[in-house]
């Protein structure tokens, strides 16, 4: 009897350990955000920040994308559910300064409906020393370079969430989602300072500079 109890206890302990182990791998998921759609049209409001801050993430110094939810709060989630064959109108407020592209090709916006507007002016190409980030969905051919806040700007944002009263650039553009699928999006600017080739940390962790578009 004692033996059986011991074995049952051992199995239970193993189960707890395994559950704990799995949970270690599942924590990296961020919550899915679903913007409200009007027919075949969706508005997304995003901000890109130089440091995500201690409130929103375990790594306060990492760069990150944030998205504005329906109640107007900035949330750190990069998995967005969007309707298929829809027009997505995106507004990005960028609070970060320039990092520069390694491949200047990626300064040319592609795959958009209409053109990319930076502070209301259409953009043909962003010179390679300027982008602070890009918003890119390679499978949809979408690539949007994001213009930087000037290095000498006043009132720059420290830790996110950043209010619009801080120095920022406004980028607006529209793209079409296409057929249902699970598309990754990422940033192509080596903006993860302190990591080799600027591509570690936030650039390799979903929830900061990478995410998914769940097109349904």
């Amino acid at each position: 009897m004692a033996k059986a109890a011991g074995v049952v206890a051992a199995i239970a302990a193993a189960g707890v350990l395994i559950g704990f182990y799995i949970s270690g791998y599942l924590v990296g998921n961020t919550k899915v955000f679903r913007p409200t759609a009007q027919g075949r049209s969706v508005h997304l409001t995003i901000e890109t920040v130089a440091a995500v801050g201690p409130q929103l993430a375990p790594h306060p110094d990492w760069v990150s994308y944030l998205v504005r939810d329906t109640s107007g709060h900035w949330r750190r989630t990069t998995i967005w559910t969007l309707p298929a064959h829809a027009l997505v109108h995106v507004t990005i407020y960028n609070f970060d300064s320039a990092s520069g592209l390694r491949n200047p090709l990626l300064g040319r916006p592609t795959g958009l409906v209409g053109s990319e507007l930076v502070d209301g002016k259409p953009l043909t190409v962003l010179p390679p020393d300027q982008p602070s980030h890009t918003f890119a969905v390679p499978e949809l051919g979408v690539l949007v370079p994001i213009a930087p806040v000037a290095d000498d700007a006043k009132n720059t944002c420290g830790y996110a969430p950043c209010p619009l009263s801080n120095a920022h650039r406004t980028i607006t553009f529209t793209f079409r989602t296409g057929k249902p699928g699970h598309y990754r999006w990422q940033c192509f600017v080596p903006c993860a300072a302190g990591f080799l080739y600027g591509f570690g940390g936030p650039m390799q962790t979903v929830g900061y500079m990478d995410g998914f578009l769940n097109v349904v």
Partner: protein
Amino acid sequence: MTTAPRDGVIANDGHGRRFVIAFIVLSVIATPLVAIFVGPLFPPGNGSAQAHEQVFDNTWLVAIMTPPAVFVVVFLLYALVSFRSRSAAVVDGPPIRGDARIQAVWMAATGIIVLFLAGFGSYELVQSGSGGGQGPNPAFTPAGASKAMDVQVIAQQWEFTYRYPSYGGVEVPHLVLPANTLIRLHVTSLDAIHSFWAYQLGVKADANPGVDNVAYVQTKGPMTFDIHCAELCGLWHGYMFDTGQVVDASRFASWIKQQRTYFGPVVKYLPKYSTIYLPDPQRRAG
């Protein structure tokens, strides 16, 4: 080597002969069947001269390997059925400790197979480089390599882009190649190691930072092909895929013209065409 009695001396009951006959008969039947029916199923198809060679090579390999496979499987089946112990008590078998003749035949047979395989593979490789990346100074080039068209594949985390040095050094995000042309692909990387795998073209070449990895491919007719990254390169390795196209010459000309117009504004910002780029590592330095 050994002084123990030879197999036949113990009991000349025909086990050895029966096995050898079964092996020969089954090999003779199976080998051509495998070569004819399994061989053509092998990848990567007939998308390029290199892909075609690989299928040919794979067909030969599988045909050569059929007899050894038949040997081991038939041997095991025969032995397990014939020599299973039929008594409940533990009975010893005959104390055979070796046979120099069998050993010599085995060594000769495996040696011949191995040398043939290596010779055959080398011959196939030397002919054209077989579509693999060969580094900056390819040792094995196909005929007419000096007139090949250069295309640069630039891998970065996590996308391939392509440069056409003979068309004003324009860089584009998708690969289109002209049909029936010998292409010299220069594969390089701007950060981690990637591997450019154009599956239907039979091309695979690692993209290393600071290295010009050259692979030759002779395209055939118009087709589309899949491109994957085949070397673990970080978070989006599994999503680093794309589709490329082979189109006939006139369509290629109009396509490249269109690309030069669209990407015209960015060409002036591109670095001068070079076989390698050495980006600033942006170390975690103080």
